[in-house]
């Protein structure tokens, strides 16, 4: 890089003609610095206290005769638990996909020039962000009480084109997907909206000035730059969803927590089985965090200030850019 090259030429020039004349003081300056580092007694004390506390906690837990560690490995790969893990994954992925679709639509609605769309999207976000997920889940689960049949009718008439019993469609799993999806959709809408508004106005103006239509500008110019901005918070949302999906156990979905509950309601090893569930939740969130970081690295392409893998082009001079990036 040119800057490095110029640095080198400068330093060569300096050593060629040392300011204090040849020899004088040059030996001293070249000597390696071996200074006594600053001591931090406070750190050592705090560290020692913490280590003691952790050891004591470990001994207390390990020495507790009521807590049977042996149970944990027995149940970690129990078929019932594995079914629960599978269902947790399905619930999370499907709800998230559902939430993404709704969220993108709501985000575009909020940014629309049409006041009705803007208002509707705003009301949706307000409602679903402002009420507890648990309430929403139980609500959808019990929707059959007030709407015994669901179907398509022509609005304001009694003409029904298609109708089904609520209880056959609103299974616990479907109610959970509906509840979790609609709830996270409201959060995703705000994430996507923030991503879109983070793309500088200049990008849209440049596209308009070239003659690109608004729709194409959104698809080719704005969204590709909004997505890398939205991915980290979307990853968080995914990890949250993984954990919020445990709430579905309340409406009789046999996901990870639900399956753990079935087991401990029989053998009463409540804490041990909760540890089993926690191990799985941790494993899944760790896995997804890792996948997220891979995705982020891929999306960082061409963006300044972020290390890229394209060392092939590193030879071109890099200038840090201010403003519009």
């Amino acid at each position, binding site marked *: 890089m040119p800057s490095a090259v110029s640095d080198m030429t400068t330093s060569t020039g300096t050593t060629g003609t040392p300011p204090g004349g040849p020899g004088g003081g040059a030996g001293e300056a070249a000597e390696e610095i071996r200074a006594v580092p600053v001591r931090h007694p406070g750190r050592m004390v705090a560290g020692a206290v913490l280590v003691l506390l952790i050891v004591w906690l470990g001994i207390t837990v390990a020495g507790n005769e009521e807590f049977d560690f042996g149970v944990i490995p027995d149940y970690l790969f129990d078929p019932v638990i594995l079914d629960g893990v599978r269902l947790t994954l399905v619930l999370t992925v499907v709800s998230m996909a559902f939430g993404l679709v709704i969220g993108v639509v709501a985000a575009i609605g909020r940014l629309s020039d049409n006041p009705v769309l803007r208002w509707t999207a705003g009301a949706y976000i307000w409602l679903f962000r402002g009420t507890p997920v648990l309430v929403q889940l139980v609500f959808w689960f019990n929707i059959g009480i007030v709407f015994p049949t669901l179907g398509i009718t022509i609005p304001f008439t009694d003409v029904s084109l298609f109708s089904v019993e609520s209880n056959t469609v609103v299974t616990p799993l479907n109610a959970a997907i509906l509840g979790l999806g609609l709830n996270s959709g409201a959060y995703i809408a705000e994430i996507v909206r923030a991503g879109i508004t983070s793309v500088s106005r200049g990008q849209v103006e440049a596209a308009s*000035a070239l*003659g690109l*239509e608004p729709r194409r500008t959104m698809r080719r110019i704005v969204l*590709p730059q909004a997505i890398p901005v939205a991915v980290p918070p979307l990853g968080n949302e995914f990890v949250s969803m993984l954990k919020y999906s445990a709430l579905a156990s309340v409406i009789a979905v046999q996901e990870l927590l639900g399956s753990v509950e079935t087991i401990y309601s029989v053998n009463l090893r409540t804490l041990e089985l909760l540890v089993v569930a926690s191990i799985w939740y941790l494993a899944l969130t760790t896995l997804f965090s890792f996948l997220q970081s891979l995705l982020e690295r891929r999306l960082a*392409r*061409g963006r300044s200030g972020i290390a890229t893998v394209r060392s092939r*082009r590193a030879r*071109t*001079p890099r200038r840090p850019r201010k*403003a519009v990036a």
Partner: protein
Amino acid sequence: MSTPTVASVPAVSARAIRKSYGSNEVLRGIDLEVGPGQVQVIVGPSGSGKSTFLRCINHLERIDSGRLYVEGDLVGYREHRGRLHELRPQEVARQRARTGMVFQHFNLFAHMTVTQNVIEAPRHLRGLTKREAVELAHDLLRKVGLADKADAYPAELSGGQQQRVAIARALAMEPRLMLFDEPTSALDPELVGDVLDVMRGLAEGGMTMVVVTHEMGFARDVGDALVVMADGQVIEQGPPRDVLANPATERAAKFLARVH
């Protein structure tokens, strides 16, 4: 012959353009005519409305009153039986495609390489195949002296290089008119020359240009006409050398003395 009629249609014709943001009137009746092949330079203190006026020419800003024509076509509207009808977004886009614009902050598409930046619009709007578009892009990049940066991303280029790519990108649409909005104001001083050289080349090639700038040297050497704006009005107008040497109004004289 039809040549005189074509030549007589001005590239830009502005009549009594007014524009306000709320109670702040930024353009107070601008009249300006730019002939085909002319280089019109606009200077003036910041806040004088020169950039706003330039942005009105391709309808990035809409005017409140007056009439603005590019090559005889009303910008942003259609006049039908004495009433103005707004053009639809696609029609506005089609109008803008004939005018190139270069911005102060370059506004290159950050997620695309230099080549992708240049081919995006012509690929879609001029119906070029990918191969034709890339060939065109490489020709244009050679013209602005950046043939070796075809695969670089904007963040890897200096400001001056980015601005030259932005010019190539605008030229790829084969515009009849180029608008420059303070193209060198965001550049380090040593990079200004490269961009001005490219613009000088364009002018020599006969491109019609409207240039908002603070570069008085460029105005004098390349400009065919110079306009000094202040407070949303044209306060001085004429051949650059005359205006720069003997400004008629005191305000213009004061401004020019400061930027010289």
